[in-house]
């Protein structure tokens, strides 16, 4: 099978065709969506078909990644064009307003960013963290409980981080010291968090739900501008935690890839035996990483409860921890990639929410929610570049 394929360099022309295919698809998006919104099906179909053709040529020529990228971009252009025509100009203009859409994207992406960056620390140290969802949910509950008890959102935040870190520490003990299967342990953490938060919620607040929150108890927005226009609308009134998540992204990148501690973290995740040999405490690094991942996930959860929704209900994360895990994988275990994936998934949530306002579209908006999972499935399938985890991810380490 493999022997029959002639191994040769892809021609330079195919790079140009591939890029051209993607550019044409982008042009189709621009024409389809507001503010241009040419409500005709002809343009997107023609442009999409051309970019699929160019992509196919590129893929056949050997540049599989670029080629498949162009093909899927072209397919998306046709789909988008059809949907846009179906929706009609007026509905589209009311639903797709870029400024608010971006602001809403940041809101939806922020919890994912925190949890995904948390997961990055854990997995880079070689501990798979399926329990992100549970740690996030713990943050949700303890954030609102702490804020309500102390009257200050930042104390609520700290309590949430403490609770998330504690849960992660328990997980760490089982995963690191007892060498339990990490997937099983993570699953257990999710069940436990669901049970514990649900139990405490009903025990403390009963069926009436969490009380209304005062201003001091919710995380404030940073108001820069309330003018019209894309940038003021997108960035003018974002929550403090959204800005912190941007900063955290940069800090995470610098820490993991530009400091000796980051190098140690990655060494433990790639080759623990070698790291041990040069005197790095594998257990110490892993405990720190796992605990920190729980604290970050809990921050994301606390943002949900005291920064965004301003209340708590049972299982309110609804799979966001898994989307964060998906973002981490989709972003190939890199901070920038994970953040980009979180933005993409956040955008699809924001779009789904706004499309829900178009009559008869609410049902399709529901389907939109599945998009992050489909994309991640495609990503792990390796059609558009493989996602390869750290080498020792999921393998317990035993000292000799």
């Amino acid at each position: 099978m493999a022997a029959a394929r002639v191994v040769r360099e892809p021609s330079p022309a195919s790079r140009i065709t591939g890029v051209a295919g993607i550019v044409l698809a982008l042009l189709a998006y621009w024409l389809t969506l507001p503010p241009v919104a040419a409500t005709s099906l002809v343009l997107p179909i023609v442009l999409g078909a051309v970019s699929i053709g160019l992509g196919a040529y590129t893929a056949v020529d050997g540049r599989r990644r670029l080629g498949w990228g162009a093909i899927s971009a072209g397919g998306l252009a046709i789909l988008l064009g059809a949907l846009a025509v179906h929706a009609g100009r007026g509905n589209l203009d009311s639903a797709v307003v870029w400024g608010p859409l971006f602001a809403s994207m940041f809101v939806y992406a922020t919890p994912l960013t925190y949890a995904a960056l948390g997961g990055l620390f854990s997995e880079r140290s070689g501990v798979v963290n399926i329990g992100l969802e549970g740690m996030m949910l713990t943050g949700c509950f303890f954030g609102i409980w702490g804020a309500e008890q102390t009257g200050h959102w930042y104390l609520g935040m700290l309590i949430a981080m403490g609770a998330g870190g504690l849960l992660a520490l328990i997980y760490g003990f089982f995963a690191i010291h007892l060498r339990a299967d990490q997937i099983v342990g993570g699953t257990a953490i999710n069940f436990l968090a669901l049970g514990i938060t649900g139990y405490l919620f009903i025990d403390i607040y009963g069926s009436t739900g969490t009380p209304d929150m005062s201003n001091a108890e919710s995380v404030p927005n940073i108001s820069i501008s309330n003018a019209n226009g894309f940038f003021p609308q997108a960035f003018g009134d974002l929550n403090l935690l959204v800005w912190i998540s941007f900063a955290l992204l940069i800090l995470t990148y610098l820490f993991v890839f530009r400091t000796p501690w980051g190098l140690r973290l990655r060494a433990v995740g790639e080759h623990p035996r070698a790291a041990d040999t040069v005197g790095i405490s594998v257990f110490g690094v892993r405990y720190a990483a796992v605990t920190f991942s729980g604290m970050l996930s809990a921050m994301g959860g606390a943002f949900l409860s005291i920064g965004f929704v301003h209340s708590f209900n049972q299982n309110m994360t609804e799979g966001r921890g898994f989307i964060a895990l998906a973002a981490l994988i989709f972003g190939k275990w890199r901070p920038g990639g994970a953040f980009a994936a979180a933005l993409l998934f956040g955008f699809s949530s924001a779009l789904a929410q706004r499309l829900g306002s178009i009559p008869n579209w609410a049902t399709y908006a529901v389907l939109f929610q599945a998009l992050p999972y489909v994309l991640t499935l495609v990503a792990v399938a390796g059609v558009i570049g493989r996602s390869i985890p750290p080498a020792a991810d999921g393998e317990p380490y035993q000292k000799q």
Partner: protein
Amino acid sequence: MSEQQFEEPPRAPTGGDYAPSVAERLALYQRAGGFVTPLVTAIIAFFIGGLVVLASGSNPLSTYRAIFNGTGLNWFFPWISSADRTLAALNLQQTLLLTTPLILCGLAVAFAFRCGMFNIGGQGQYAVGSIMAVWVASAFVGMNGPLHIVLTIVVASVCGALWAGIAGLLKATVGAHEVISTIMLNWIAYWIGSWVFALGGPLQSHANGGSVPVSHDIQPNTHLHVFWGNPVLQGLHIGFFVAIAALVVYWITLNRTTLGYQVRAVGFNPEAARYGGMSVARNYVVAMAIAGGFAGLAGAIDVLGWEFRLNVNDIQVSQIGFIAIAVALLGRNTAVGVFFSALLFGALLNGTSTRHLDPSVFRPDLAGNLTLIIQGLVVLFVGADVLVLWLWSQRRKLRLARADANTAVTS
């Protein structure tokens, strides 16, 4: 590595008749560890659950007794009064009703485990199975009843198998980790289910003016026969025997067929299996598909047995496939173990439900979460059976040391 590799140094026979071979000792050890570990695990989990109850100001013993009475398991006690027995029978029917899908989904997780894969996707496969079942069973008006039932079950199982097969195929072809792909497939199934029965969705019923997000009712002649209890009050249907039969099929397939031998060989050591001439990739796909078939079957049985229609909420709150992970782990992926742990979790779910727990003893909405906590603890401790194995080996070492001391004295 596990403690099993610790072999005692060869020693002269000490005069007793009993001189077990290494293999015998290992077998005994495995067997003992086999039921001791889950038992200890469950006891610890229930103990900690009791502490939680105590912390929130209730009496754990009376709470557990109330939960037990809600399960209907007291039906087996010969000494209870006939009035109690009537009530217990009703409760037990509900417990077994929940045990049925737990057995099947537990087998879905267990079968993949035996091939060395962790199938977290039981929930998605179950959802796909139930969506297909409600679709097929509500269509084909006027079809012969038994034939319609068989068709529904076959379609649901095949679709469950295909759904899980995606994960198996991805693992076999590109090496994608099955945990990630089954999690993703779970959520895709969740949103598909939320879409098809939602207002305006393709499978939504328009019976009530289209204002309720619910499917069509299945045809009355596709309802499974209720053999114990009142059909109107959700008696126990014959799907329970399907689950029991599935346990037998599971055991025979794994232990008495070439397919099962290969699946276990791949699960035990893929490299060795490959060296032995087996196709590891093929076994991954087949094992995953069989697992999905079990879960899809569970979906069909639930729809035909007692649900009869699905609404969006049914899809979204269902936890059967997740509890099945605990069922398979606690049951050590054996047929007998899966049966008993499915019964345990079915009883726990039923005993803590609003309908069956006496609210004057313990609040049912709290107890539902208590079930989740116990379930989480069980999974946590089962995953760490190193802990129990370690205790076990400590005990053995202690015994050997004592034996050594005795030998030294006598010689």
